[in-house]
């Protein structure tokens, strides 16, 4: 029993257990640092355990394989970064701080479950655990109008998208009589008792639900508002962990259910990918709010990953995972800078907040520049190699149209990244320079940002170790 079930699910249990421990600790005595420390400890334990636990199928709901463990590790590491950022951020703000970590752990657990689920039931469970954590995280600063508005918006939209997802699952179940991803592939391949008029709408509705979570066009409308309204560390969470967990699930669902055999699905994916790349990059051009720019850019990046997903096969899956890792690093880094710069009363989301940053706080500005250049896909950064991987995978299968669109749209994307970079390096007039706000970066946040920057460049120059790990992970998937 222990060896069969408890040990393989240790990464998940540790996170779940930590949330309970933090809750009990808060009940005994409120202390921000204790809650933060326990959270970090739990996440670190979960991260480490992901390296050691044996690979096993847990019932029919969860598959703990190399692939799932890889994403669990990634999510745990990202959650640690978010927790560190949140610690400095919350310390300066009003209200109780400790519950934030409980919610953070719960939402992280949801994302981890998604990464391991190979069944519609666990998919839905993971998704709801993640979403419910997020509703309250987004509206955590409940005295302020923007976060509350964003929280309610997210609640309404996420709930309705869950409804779509559930209905889609029901239709697929009605047709095939199973909710296991691998069984779906078998039944679809055998071709008996198939009613495409039930199955296809079902898959379409499921993709709608997933597309909403990933903020793919045309389901992207919520993204800029939520990104802008949510506290900066929570935005980082929404952008990375929530989407990463969902994409981990989508890749597993896509490859195990052999969705690539349904040609209508591929057509729909192409349309969604192209729409996301264009919508994200074009809409970002008209924004002056850095958080909204990052929101639109994340839509475009999900479009790029979708291109890789559609390419399929070993190369496509590898490109998806590599790009997601790159996306985690650069997005977390970008939001780390936003968090660090945010004054007490609001988030630093206006482009004016960044003007001349290089002349005031050069290291912070250079870190942010590295993140933006990586998002733009410039060499020496992990973002470049991610794009290279996607383009190479696409070229190998001859998906020239998608690649060309990727190249064109990512050049459009350069405009708005460079606009922020130009602002960072603008020379200030003397009156502006005299204005105070000379704040020091909290050491913990500085550490997170420097680690992310170093990893960004390290993986941009030497991607092979990561490539090796990824290849081992997808080995079990395909």
């Amino acid at each position, binding site marked *: 029993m222990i060896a069969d079930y408890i040990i393989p699910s240790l990464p998940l249990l540790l996170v779940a257990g930590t949330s309970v421990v933090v809750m009990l600790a808060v009940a005994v005595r409120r202390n921000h640092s204790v809650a933060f420390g326990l959270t970090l400890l739990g996440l670190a334990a979960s991260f480490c355990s992901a390296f050691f636990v044996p690979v096993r199928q847990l019932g029919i709901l969860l598959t703990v394989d190399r692939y799932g463990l890889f994403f669990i590790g990634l999510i745990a590491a990202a959650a640690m970064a978010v927790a560190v950022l949140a610690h400095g951020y919350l310390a300066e703000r009003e209200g109780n701080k400790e519950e934030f970590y409980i919610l953070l752990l719960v939402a992280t657990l949801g994302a981890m479950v998604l990464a391991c689920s190979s069944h519609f039931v666990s998919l839905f469970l993971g998704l709801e655990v993640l979403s419910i954590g997020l509703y309250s995280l987004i509206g955590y600063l409940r005295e302020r109008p923007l976060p509350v508005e964003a929280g309610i918006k997210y609640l309404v939209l996420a709930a309705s998208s869950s409804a779509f997802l559930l209905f889609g699952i029901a239709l697929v179940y009605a047709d095939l009589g199973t909710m296991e991803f691998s069984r779906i592939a078998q039944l679809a391949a055998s071709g008996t008792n198939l009613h495409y008029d039930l199955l296809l709408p079902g898959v379409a509705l499921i993709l709608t639900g997933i597309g909403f979570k990933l903020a793919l066009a045309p389901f992207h409308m919520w993204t800029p508002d939520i990104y802008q309204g949510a506290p900066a560390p929570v935005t980082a969470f929404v952008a990375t962990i929530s989407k990463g967990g969902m994409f981990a699930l989508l890749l597993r669902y896509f490859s195990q259910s052999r969705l690539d055999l349904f040609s209508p699905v591929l057509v729909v994916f192409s349309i969604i990918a192209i729409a996301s790349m264009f919508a994200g990059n074009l809409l970002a051009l008209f924004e002056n709010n850095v958080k909204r720019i990052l929101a639109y850019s994340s839509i475009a990046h999900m479009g790029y990953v979708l291109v890789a997903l559609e390419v399929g096969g070993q190369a496509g899956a590898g490109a998806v995972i590599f790009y997601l890792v790159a996306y985690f690093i650069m997005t977390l880094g970008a939001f780390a800078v936003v968090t660090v710069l945010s004054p007490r009363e609001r988030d630093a989301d206006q482009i004016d907040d960044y003007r001349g940053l290089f002349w005031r706080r050069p290291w912070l500005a250079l870190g942010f520049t590295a993140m933006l*250049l990586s998002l733009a896909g410039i*060499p020496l950064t992990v973002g470049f190699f991610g794009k*290279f991987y996607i*383009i190479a995978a696409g*070229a*190998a299968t001859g998906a020239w149209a998608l690649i060309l669109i990727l*190249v064109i749209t990512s050049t459009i994307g350069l405009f708005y990244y460079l606009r922020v970079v130009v602002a960072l390096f603008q*020379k200030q007039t003397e009156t502006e320079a005299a204005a105070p706000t000379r704040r020091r970066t909290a050491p913990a946040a500085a550490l997170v940002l420097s680690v992310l920057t170093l990893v960004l460049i390290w993986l941009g120059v030497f991607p092979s170790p990561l490539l090796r790990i990824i290849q081992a992970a997808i080995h079990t998937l395909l």
Partner: protein
Amino acid sequence: MILLWLIVVLIIGGILAWAVARAIPLLSRWISVVAILLDLALALYLAVQHLNAGPWLAQADWDWIPQFGIHFHLAMDGLSLLLVILTLFIGLLAVFVSWREITTAIGFYHFNILCILAGILGVFLSLDLFLFYFSWELMLVPMYFLILLWGREHRARAAIKFFLFTQISGLLMLIAILALYIAHYRVTGIYTFEYAELLGTPLSPLASMCIMLGFFAAFAVKLPVFPFHTWLPDACAEASTGTNMILAGLLATTAGYGMIRFLFPLFPNATRTFAPIAMILAVIGILYGAFLALSQTNLMRLLAYASISHLGFVLLGIFASNALSVQGAVMTMIAHGISTGALFLIAGLLEARTGSRELDSMSGLWDTVPRLSGVGLFFALASLGLPGMGDFIGEFLVLLGTFRGHLIFAIVAACGVLAAMFYALRFVQRAFHGPNLRQLHLPDLAMREGFVLGVMIVALLWLGFYPQPVFHTFAHAANHLPALWR
């Protein structure tokens, strides 16, 4: 191994220069000088030791990203050697020039300069197409910062324009490289970016043409070739002097090098089909650049257009593809790097003294700065192709080579030489001759400035009177670039 050091020394120097700048700004300048000199010594050592060693003077090959068959493969032949030395020479001068001009963020400036130089050396040395692309793009970001941070009034626009032009064309080249990589895989079943193995990959005429155009796009923007040139005058008008020397003098050579090294050997048939179009563009560029240079009032813009005109000869020479014309193109690249670099330097010195880049605000400067004016006249004459200087040899050989097979192009291009006379002399007359209207009293050439320009004069005269070492070194490389000569 020395080849790796060539690049690493520059990067370490850049990091050191940046690190010490806050404490001792002057040390940062000297570290850059020492790093470049060290590199120059290494390059000359290679030249002396191995010049007759075989096709490659030196090689270094490591696995880099084995999953994709990417190697860290550096190699140097005569052509790379010439251009590496040119790069380090101009880079050294660019550091000297910035001694007075750059006063803010000194460390970051030198870091960027040294990174660009490292990127350019990477381009000249890489024999793995992925590494080549990587180095190609590595030049981009530091140059963007150089324009953005130390430029003039409209620098942000110019910097973004430069970035976009280069990035779009670079991405087209990346797609082309990948297409070649996949095509090679389909035939042989091996994933590799290795230059030697990709040579002779069988391609259908259409595929070959498309892939070749992808490469050409990147080179055409960087050179720059006529319709893709608009970023250069804008960037030159805004950037600082040292940046301009690299921008107009060195980035163009990377494009010319790319054409000689990759375009012709990899796609011999497609380039031959495409040659007439490229030569038409070259001739248009020669005339168009010259005519626009005639009507510029901003000195930096004038030089940028003049440089577009000269670089037209490089394109013409390469695509005329016979022994004479290609030698001429290489010579033009080198001489142009020096003479245009010197002219930008003089423009920068004039700007530092008169406080303006406008020709209208300079007049009769010969009275007050005779030595500077004399040197200005010298380089203007070099630029219009006076015999005895490197530019003449280069352009003359290009015309001679082109004349053999493409009479019309040679005739039209020769008119460009004529036009060069007008804009070069117009520059001399407007700036140095005439009455000293504003009654300016300016300091003449200082020691360091005089030394730098003196070195450049010597180099240019040497190239003009005794170009044999250059041809000899290049001939050494040309032997294994058979596709160049039909």
